[in-house]
């Protein structure tokens, strides 16, 4: 049997052959019986008559079977035609009815587009950030390894541990450490600051990508005796070096850490396009320095590490092995793997992708979940709206029904219409999603992983189309289920709706309740994030932000001693102070909002040592620091030029420190010293108390801080920051600042200073991002739900028009009628609100990591959401009900 025959056979079976033979029999029976009757009336016996009639056919059976065959063929073709004609008609009617009610259709399309757009956009994000493998060969074999604390996620790592693993781990094919830093290069005339990564030798092997020009780093590059070398990213090679194909071997002047003795570095390679990391330049991490090997490095988390798994090993194997190595290390160096500070310390390995998306995985799923809820609510509401609309169309449908359209035919027409609108909705939704993805990229906080790869792709479009078809089917079918069972076509006679099935009523109730509950849930989440963001804006960073500029400055490596280092900074600041427009300038490595990494142990003179580890930050700051930053001096004095080395060592503490350690007296005159385990650290006398500032972020809990004069410190840093109180905008000041700094050292890069307000704004990006996105989803959800409730209520109220008429005719007051009609919906809304609030209260701690300024059970937020949504939902119920009471009783009854 050929395929064609098979198909024909299949199709023929679906079109009832029995039906065809029945029809043939009916037709022939009429013929035979009529003829027999005629002959009998002419006087023949029935037997004779029948024989004569059959004879007229020749062979009756042959005739019959050929007729049946022909009829079956005919039925098949006509039913195909009828089906296609029907579909064409459905489409035409659908288009016409959409165009006839542009408001309704527009709203439907908009609601669907919102749901589909949000869902597709977030699906794109999920797909490209969480699901797509990293853009490296066999990237599933890449793992991140780092220190774990109490079994948590592996973080950064120390160099002795890296060395231990690098030498001993059998599960790792290649293993590299890297550290983000900055490098200054003189490309053309001016020195510029570039983000760089200092990497160990196996780095490019781990990722499986190598330079396409020149070579990777070799052993000599890591040798302190050789000339410093760098590898460029494709982007920087194009932008800064004009994509010069002969770039390899070129030497560039530098002033940064990697200049060391020679003032230049040699380019040895260029990485291919698409190899991205936060760094644009790679430099060899020279492992020969003492800091690399010293035991104290066990407590300095300086590097990230990444590895490629050896064949036959999985992440679990690597994790088990590094844990074993950690246990061995802990036995050798118990002081670094236990005790007060290092309790629960171990080593862990996770897939590199997990590390890359760490901190955003849950928030991406959270937003995707919210978008899916929005789509679900959109579909639920549309069902309600279609139901209400079907009412308006009772007449039209009844007329069509009377003209012979079957129940299925009318149902199909409604579904076609729903699918048509949802297809239009999905086209618009896809456009919205494309815009949404762009908006997402703009809104996303700076640290958002793999943001460049986020785009609307084919799978998303397919996803949107599936969503559209499903939602179309649902929107079309649900009204049929929720409407009257007996007559889905909503009959001419509205009185029959009084017999509306209990099942449909219950389903409608569930729909309203579930919508309200889900919307409440979403709104509470968004409300918490919005409230959190709102409160954060009121958090004061502790400094006068206006006209406060911060400029990073690299300290050339030739300034090796503390005197040279301090001398260079004093010289630069003196020149900056002379720039017109600069009110005053000073320096510190870490001003407020720029982090604080010096967290020493502190012992106070004459007081028992606190057994609790004190979470505290200390900062070396230049003269007049507090005046420049606008940090209020609450007691005593600030730090001045007088507080230089040789003079009495002093310290200034902030109000939190003072409250904590000197709750009953002034700290002035007390003494403190840092890192007492060093033994001989000197005492500092507290001379002042200043206001508290935010160390890294407005979202953090403020903690005690100590300031000491930079002029009295002997520690040197590769980078510091000049803080400037300026009367001019940063851009106007920049050229003059460049001149001033270059007079001190022409090789130091001078970036445009950053206004501290920009830093605060960047800090707000993360909470703002979550608040805006979730806020958008939940407000859309609220609007969508209210439309749905309104639609359903209109349906219910119209169904009770007769009852309302009778009640009114019997003298019931408007309020009473209103109450009677809306009471069931009030109950549903109340139940929905309660369920939503309960669910939100049960799960809002999931938002915990995103909330800083409020608790997950913030009562005002819950109250505001419940009140706001409750009132608007009641309003959406009352309006259709109120309209019903306005109908003249006589008019209502005339319907009967």
């Amino acid at each position: 049997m050929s395929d064609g025959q098979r198909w024909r056979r299949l199709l023929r079976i679906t079109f009832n052959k029995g039906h065809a033979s029945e029809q043939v029999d009916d037709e022939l029976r009429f013929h035979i019986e009529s003829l027999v009757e005629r002959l009998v009336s002419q006087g023949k016996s029935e037997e004779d008559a029948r024989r004569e009639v059959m004879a007229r056919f020749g062979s009756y059976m042959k005739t019959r079977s050929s007729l049946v065959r022909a009829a079956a063929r005919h039925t098949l073709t006509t039913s195909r035609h009828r089906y296609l004609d029907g579909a064409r008609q459905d489409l035409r009617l659908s288009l016409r009815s959409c165009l006839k009610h542009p408001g309704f259709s527009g709203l439907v399309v908009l609601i669907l587009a919102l749901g589909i757009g949000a869902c597709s956009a977030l699906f794109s994000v999920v797909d490209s950030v969480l699901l797509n493998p990293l853009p490296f060969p066999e990237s599933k074999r890449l793992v991140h390894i780092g220190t774990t604390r109490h079994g948590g996620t592996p973080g950064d790592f120390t160099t002795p541990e890296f060395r231990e693993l690098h030498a001993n781990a059998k599960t790792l094919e290649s293993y590299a450490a890297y550290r983000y830093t900055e490098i200054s290069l003189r490309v053309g005339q001016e020195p510029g600051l570039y983000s760089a990564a200092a990497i160990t030798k196996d780095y490019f092997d781990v990722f499986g990508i190598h330079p396409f020009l020149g070579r990777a780093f070799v052993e000599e590059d890591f040798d302190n005796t050789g000339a410093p070398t760098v590898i460029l990213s494709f982007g920087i090679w194009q932008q800064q070096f004009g994509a010069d194909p002969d770039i390899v071997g070129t030497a560039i002047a530098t002033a940064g850490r990697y200049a060391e003795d020679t003032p230049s570095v040699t380019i040895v390679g260029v990485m291919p396009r698409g190899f991205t990391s936060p760094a644009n330049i790679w430099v060899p991490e020279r492992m020969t320095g003492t800091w690399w090997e010293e035991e104290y490095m066990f407590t300095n988390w300086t590097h990230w590490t990444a590895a490629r798994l050896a064949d036959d090993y999985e992440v679990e194997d690597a994790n088990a092995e590094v844990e074993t190595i950690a246990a061995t290390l802990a036995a050798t160096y118990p002081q670094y793997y236990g005790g007060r500070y290092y309790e629960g310390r171990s080593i862990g390995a996770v897939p590199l992708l997990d590390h890359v998306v760490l901190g955003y995985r849950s928030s991406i799923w959270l937003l995707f979940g919210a978008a899916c809820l929005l789509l679900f609510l959109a579909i639920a509401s549309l069902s309600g709206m279609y139901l209400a609309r079907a009412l308006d169309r009772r007449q039209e449908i009844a007329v069509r029904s009377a003209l012979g359209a079957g129940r299925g035919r009318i149902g199909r027409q409604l579904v076609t219409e729903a699918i048509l609108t949802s297809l239009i909705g999905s086209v618009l939704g896809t456009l919205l999603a494309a815009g949404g993805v762009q908006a997402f990229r703009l809104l996303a906080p700076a640290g958002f992983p793999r943001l460049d790869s986020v785009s609307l792709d084919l799978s998303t479009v397919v996803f949107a189309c599936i969503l559209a078809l499903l939602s179309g089917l649902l929107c079309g079918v649900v009204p049929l289920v929720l409407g009257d069972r007996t007559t889905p076509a909503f009959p001419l006679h509205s009185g029959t709706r009084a017999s509306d099935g209990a099942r449909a009523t219950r389903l409608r109730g569930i729909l309203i309740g579930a919508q309200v509950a889900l919307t409440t849930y979403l709104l509470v989440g968004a409300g918490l994030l919005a409230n959190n963001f709102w409160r954060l804006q009121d958090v004061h960073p502790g400094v006068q932000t206006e006209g406060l500029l911060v400029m990073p400055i690299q300290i050339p490596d030739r300034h090796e001693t503390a005197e040279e280092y301090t001398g260079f900074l004093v010289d630069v600041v003196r020149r900056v102070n002379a720039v017109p427009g600069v009110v005053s300038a000073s320096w510190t490595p870490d001003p407020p909002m720029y982090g604080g990494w010096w967290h020493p142990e502190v012992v106070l003179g004459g007081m028992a040592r606190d057994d609790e580890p004190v979470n505290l930050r200390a900062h070396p700051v230049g003269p007049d620091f507090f005046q420049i930053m606008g940090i209020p001096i609450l007691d005593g004095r600030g730090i001045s030029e007088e507080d230089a080395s040789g003079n009495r060592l002093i310290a200034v503490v902030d109000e939190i420190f003072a409250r904590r350690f000197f709750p009953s007296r002034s700290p002035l005159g007390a003494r403190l010293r840092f890192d007492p385990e060093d033994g001989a650290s000197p005492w500092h006398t507290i001379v002042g108390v200043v206001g508290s500032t935010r160390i890294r972020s407005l979202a953090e809990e403020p903690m005690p801080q100590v300031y000491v004069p930079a002029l009295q410190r002997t520690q040197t840093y590769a980078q510091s920051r000049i803080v400037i109180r300026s009367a001019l905008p940063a851009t106007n000041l920049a050229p003059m600042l460049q001149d001033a700094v270059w007079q001190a050292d022409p090789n130091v890069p001078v970036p445009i200073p950053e206004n501290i307000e920009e830093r605060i704004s960047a800090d707000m990006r993360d909470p703002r991002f979550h608040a805006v996105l979730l806020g958008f989803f939940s407000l859309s959800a609220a609007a969508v739900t209210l439309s749905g409730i309104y639609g359903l209520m209109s349906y219910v109220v119209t169904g009770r028009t007769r009852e309302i008429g009778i009640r009114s005719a019997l003298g019931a007051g408007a309020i009473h009628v209103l109450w009677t009609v809306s009471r069931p919906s009030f109950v549903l809304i109340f139940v929905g609100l309660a369920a939503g609030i309960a669910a939100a209260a049960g799960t809002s701690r999931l938002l915990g990591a995103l909330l800083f300024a409020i608790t997950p059970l913030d009562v005002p937020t819950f109250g505001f959401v419940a009140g706001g949504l409750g009132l608007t939902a009641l309003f959406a119920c009352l309006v259709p009900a109120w309209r019903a009471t306005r109908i003249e009783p006589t008019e209502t009854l005339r319907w009967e």
Partner: protein
Amino acid sequence: MPRKTASAMYGNLDLIILHTLSTSGPCHGLGIIDAIEAGSDGSMRVEDGALYRALHRLESDGFLKAEWRISDKNRKAKFYALTATGKTELKRAQQEWTRHTETVSKILGIGWETSR
């Protein structure tokens, strides 16, 4: 269509059915047989099986449409009626018949005016 009788008119059964239906209006199979018999003054009798096969073929060709109705004797009967394409086909077949008979008549030396 295979010839089942010697009648020269039999080959034009389709034309006869279409013509009959155009004058009688919607009609069932037996009615058509009666009408043909009456129209030919009893000289032509169509075989019943052949008539129904022709009717079904004309229906699936789209020249006829069928409908179930209740006959005068209260029986369910299948009524056939001309469709718009059926009417066109009737006109075309009539012209072809005329041309055909004219030609044959000329050859046989019969005056064709009478057959008009």
